[in-house]
């Protein structure tokens, strides 16, 4: 097969939502979805997923483990709008209603190889004292109607959030034809190892 001048490149993402560190909460599940630009389209794999409900280990009161797989391949002509994975974590409150315990987003790593990302999780806060009171009284927390807003740069100045906890993702990235399209993702010319000089 003679692939002379490709016009698209491929980004293969294998990974998993490993675990979350949310000390105050238990019995949580998470959803993920991808946000990407106009030039991007998924080729294969699932764009969205919902994990199982997990609880903390009785032995070591530490992280909530999901070990939830992500396998997706994208194609694009332009790196602009590089996909981001958006994760939202939900769990029951004292009345048993599902409420959000954290939103987070991160760009898929751009370089091939294995990567680990720990992302902060945050929830929106009520802006007025009246809303704060009613949300406390009715047990309804503020939520984003569309979790994808956490991957957008516009309109964020009006939101107030509270960050609480972290989520760990691991990725294995394979790219195809980026180099042929003229893109440099890693510095090959100057591969000088970083060193600190102390006189």
């Amino acid at each position: 097969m003679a692939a002379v001048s490709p016009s698209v490149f491929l980004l293969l993402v294998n990974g998993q939502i490993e675990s979350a560190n949310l000390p105050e909460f238990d019995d949580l599940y998470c959803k993920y979805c991808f946000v990407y630009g106009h030039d991007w389209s998924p080729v294969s794999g699932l764009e969205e997923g919902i994990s199982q409900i997990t609880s903390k280990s009785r032995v070591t009161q530490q992280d909530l483990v999901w070990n939830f797989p992500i396998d997706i391949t994208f194609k694009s002509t332009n790196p602009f709008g590089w996909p981001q994975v958006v994760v939202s974590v939900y769990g029951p409150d004292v009345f048993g209603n599902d409420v959000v315990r954290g939103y987070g987003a991160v760009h898929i790593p751009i370089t091939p190889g294995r990567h680990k990302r720990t992302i902060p999780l945050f929830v929106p806060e009520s802006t007025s004292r009246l809303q704060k009171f009613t949300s406390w009284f009715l047990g309804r927390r503020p939520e984003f109607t569309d979790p994808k807003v956490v991957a957008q740069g516009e309109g964020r100045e009006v939101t107030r959030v509270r960050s609480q906890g972290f989520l760990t993702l691991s990725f294995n990235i394979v790219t195809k034809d980026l180099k042929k399209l003229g893109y440099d993702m890693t510095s090959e010319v100057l591969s000088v190892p970083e060193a600190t000089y102390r006189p």
Partner: protein
Amino acid sequence: MAEVHIIGQIVGASGFPQHSLFCKWGINAGGAWRLLSGLKEGQTQVDNPQNEEMAYWSHPVDVHFATKGLQGWPKLHLQVWHQDSYGRCELYGYGFCHIPSSPGFHELKCVTWRPVGTWQDQLAQLFVGGGPQLKTSDLIYIGADRYRLQTTSMGCVHLQLAVILRHFDRYGVEC
């Protein structure tokens, strides 16, 4: 023309005297640079963290530049603001950093500073808050007029930026 993609996040800030912080940011580049797509300025959400060590914004950045020359390599400039419980905003720090010129993933820490006024200003600031601000925000990333300022150091802004270059090798440019 050579192209540069800057993809990443303004992660958050640490080392500031109080939390409930937000950040105004912008990317400034020289005359040879043209913005093809993406937002080159914005404002993050206000984070009031539960864990008081660091405020997190996770603010996405995705910009695409085309350039005819290397002069005026893009700079990211930041203003960190504090919002109190009444919704009043107070300047906490200015800072800038150059976009890394080598392709790949970079974790950056941008140091920040804040102008200080006379001792009367500082006394007033102690009681009512506020404080001096720059009249022109160009001064954040231009070094020419800085010598007239008296400043104090503030916290750090954490950034994760991935840089993708295109066709730089075609012009013999080594980054």
